[in-house]
């Protein structure tokens, strides 16, 4: 429940600047070694990756599209983490949110587009929150560990959704377990038009208004966590539940609120994938973004700005990685996953590896400054 203390304190510029960059460089270095081992030129590979991620407006559009998913799930993990909870269930919550979004788009498509969009946004939040509500209640009132229950709820979500898509929701005569396509007025509008106005051609990039919603959600999360009393209560519960009780805060309520909000944020993924890109409900549209969100939250230090930056990095890896395996077939799709894994390991899991060294360095710098002062 309680948040762990970092191994060593660093000055801000090291904590938020130098350390993540060093970790990223290390990750790229090790990935480069792997590329060399399979007989390819690592610099060429890096070039392809960067070009794939940022080489054109369309590629940037793809990167931002991937980032959208990861911003949502990253925020979801971060909000829960503020209450000291490790929500592994973003995947399942987003999946069920997809059902909510899909139901709105399938059955309310006689309504005008703005109304449908508003309803779909609400549905994504309500369905996502609802799927988080049971594990949250069990944690708050029965002490069932949220990690276990949310993982279990992921599996239940998979099964429920496959059942619904194989049976009632499937488009008749269609082989793939997926619903019919949404009507033209029941989709999340592309950003393409807006971009074209300012002279940017997004090409085929599936970037849509969900991206804007992700940025709004990030700003809202920042405001809520840092500047409202329920957000404050959540943080106190996460940092010291006993002090929270003493201060008149009810941990059960804070836990419920944090998890509901977390589920609602995870639901944003469904807006992007279901309503924006696939424009139908599909099996497995969450594609593991719920888990990538954990890495993004870890890397972004649970701060909305950090999460956006981390999501951009992961988005670039997804997009650049696809181009990499396309252009250099020897670097297979699995290799790209390995490279992404290195980035996660070095920037997330091993983030304490360089910390002591940097802390010593910081102390020496400080000492030097004190002497000269």
């Amino acid at each position, binding site marked *: 429940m309680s*948040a762990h*203390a970092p191994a060593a304190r660093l000055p801000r510029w090291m904590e938020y600047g130098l350390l993540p960059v060093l970790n990223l460089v290390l990750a790229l270095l090790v990935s480069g070694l792997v590329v060399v081992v399979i007989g390819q030129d690592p610099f060429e590979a890096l070039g392809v990756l960067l070009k794939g991620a940022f080489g054109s407006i369309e590629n940037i559009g793809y990167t931002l599209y991937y980032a959208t998913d990861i911003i949502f799930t990253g925020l979801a993990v971060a909000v829960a983490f503020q209450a000291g909870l490790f929500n592994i269930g973003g995947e399942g919550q987003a999946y069920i949110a997809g059902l909510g979004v899909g139901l709105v788009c399938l059955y309310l498509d006689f309504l005008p587009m703005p109304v449908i969009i508003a309803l779909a946004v609400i549905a994504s939040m309500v369905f996502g929150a609802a799927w988080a509500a049971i594990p949250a209640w069990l944690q708050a009132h029965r002490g069932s560990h949220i990690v276990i229950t949310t993982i279990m709820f992921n599996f239940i979500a998979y099964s429920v959704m496959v059942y619904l898509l194989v049976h009632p929701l499937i488009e008749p005569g269609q082989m793939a377990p997926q619903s019919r396509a949404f009507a033209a007025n029941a989709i999340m509008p592309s950003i393409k038009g807006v971009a074209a106005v300012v002279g940017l051609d997004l090409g085929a990039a599936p970037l849509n208004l969900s991206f804007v919603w992700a940025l709004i959600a990030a700003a809202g999360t920042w*405001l809520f966590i*840092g*500047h*409202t*009393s329920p957000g*404050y*209560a959540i*943080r*106190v519960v996460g*940092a*010291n539940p*006993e*002090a929270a*009780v*003493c*201060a*008149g*805060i*009810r941990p059960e309520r804070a836990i419920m609120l944090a998890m509901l909000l977390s589920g609602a944020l995870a639901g944003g993924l469904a807006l992007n994938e279901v309503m924006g890109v696939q424009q139908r409900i599909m099996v497995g549209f969450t594609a593991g973004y719920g888990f990538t969100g954990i890495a993004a939250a870890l890397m972004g230090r649970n701060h909305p700005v950090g999460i956006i930056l981390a999501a951009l990095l992961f988005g670039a890896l997804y997009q650049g990685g696809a181009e990499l395996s396309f252009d250099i077939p020897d670097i297979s799709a699995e290799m790209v996953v390995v490279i992404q894994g290195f980035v996660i390991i070095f920037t997330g899991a091993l983030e304490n590896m360089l910390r002591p060294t940097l802390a010593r360095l910081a102390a020496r710098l400080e000492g030097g400054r004190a002497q000269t002062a």
Partner: protein
Amino acid sequence: MAGAEQPPAVALQGISKRFGTVLANQDIDLAVASGTIHGIVGENGAGKSTLMSILYGFYQADAGEILIDGTVVRIQGSADAIRHGIGMVHQHFMLVETFTVLENLALGAEDGPLLRRGLDRARRTLKQIGDTYGLSVDPDAIVGGLAVGQQQRVEILKALYREARILILDEPTGVLTPQEADHLFKVLAALRQQGKTVILITHKLREIMAITDNVSVMRQGRMVAHRKTAETSAAELSELMVGRKVVLHFDKAPARPGATALSVTGLHVTDGAGIERVKGVDLTVRAGEIVGIAGVAGNGQSELLEAIAGIRRPRAGRIRSGDIDLFPHPDFSSRRVRDHRIAHVPEDRHRTGMVGAFPARENVLLGEQDSPAFHRHGLIDWKRVSADATAKMTHFDVRPCDPTLKMANFSGGNQQKLILAREMERDPILLLVGQPTRGVDIGAIEFIHRRLLALRDAGKAILLVSVELEEIMSLSDRILVMFDGRIVGEVTVTDPGAVDERMLGLLMAGCQPGQPGVIAR
């Protein structure tokens, strides 16, 4: 009991241990004769536990020597201690709750990688030890499912299984019911009969008088006396424990008690483990007075304070503030208690009073997070919170006066001043304050004491819980002594210098349990 020619089982010579600026143990000598039960008594913080931790290898002494059976030994860890035949039963048990009794016994003594052999040996030995000392425990029971007393038995068995000849018990009866305690004493007597040496750390003089052969008294890190139990009395020990204390004298105006701010009647409270800690307490606190609750830690004061603060739900009884029922009430909560202008400085500030990872200003907001004064347009107005934090930090001389500094980076005294500032400046009608000066340096102590008195003089009611007797004596207008969950004595203080602290010490040590009598002077 032990022959004069036989060297003592344990001898400590000139042991000193310093933690930072605090001398926890200072030039300690101790000799424990083989085959005896030796008691060590002293107030909280007298250094008993530190001394035993040195003997068991948790800490290394800065100076001094340890002799086992007359030979100088170096004990650098519990493994060394075990090898020298020392076993320890901790206050908090060191058991794997999900393992069986047998598995716990074999833990660390597995006899090689094949568990079966170790377990078989354990089963045989367990039966043998159990028969010898009357320590029967089901070897296949899961430890987590055992009662506390039985878990303690497993701890003792564990030590004996490792062939301990010298057994240290740290406050063994603190967690036990009276029946379990009686049984423990029988076991200790059996151990003595079999030639084992027992060191018993306690602050309960009754137990010392009942079971030990010899007793040593510690006070403020020093060993102040050794006595044969038969040749001393509870009264003498109590006086030795408390010592002649220097009471800080304030220009303390006489209290002018007003209306009743808090009344507690027939309060019963159980702790997390289901043990009854408060056994029917009645008390009142009036506006403009400080009521101090004296007592050795673990006698129910903490639970009493938590119940009044709304953190721990009482089992029975009634708590009223003015004409408002706080308990029983469907919405019994710390939120409601706070809403009725009752402030609370918890005993353990690290655990419950603050959030170390948050900056000072966010700690000033703690408990006030819903106050409209700190909100603008529905959002927390951090500017105003900062200004308020700066003001409070200035009033209470919190250094450094930086509301953005992380709470954990302040010294203990400054943390406590910040918490006091937060609670006292919320303009309460009643302040509940636990251990206000625990771990606080001398200068801050005086500052905090003056502030508490000022609050009293401003007509507020204060309920003070402290294990520091001198603090209780110098601040309180009335002193209630708590022992074993009950109020066993009440003293109205007119002159702090004239309080009979020997009498208080005796009451605190439970030497006159029975009906609470008023010892007015």
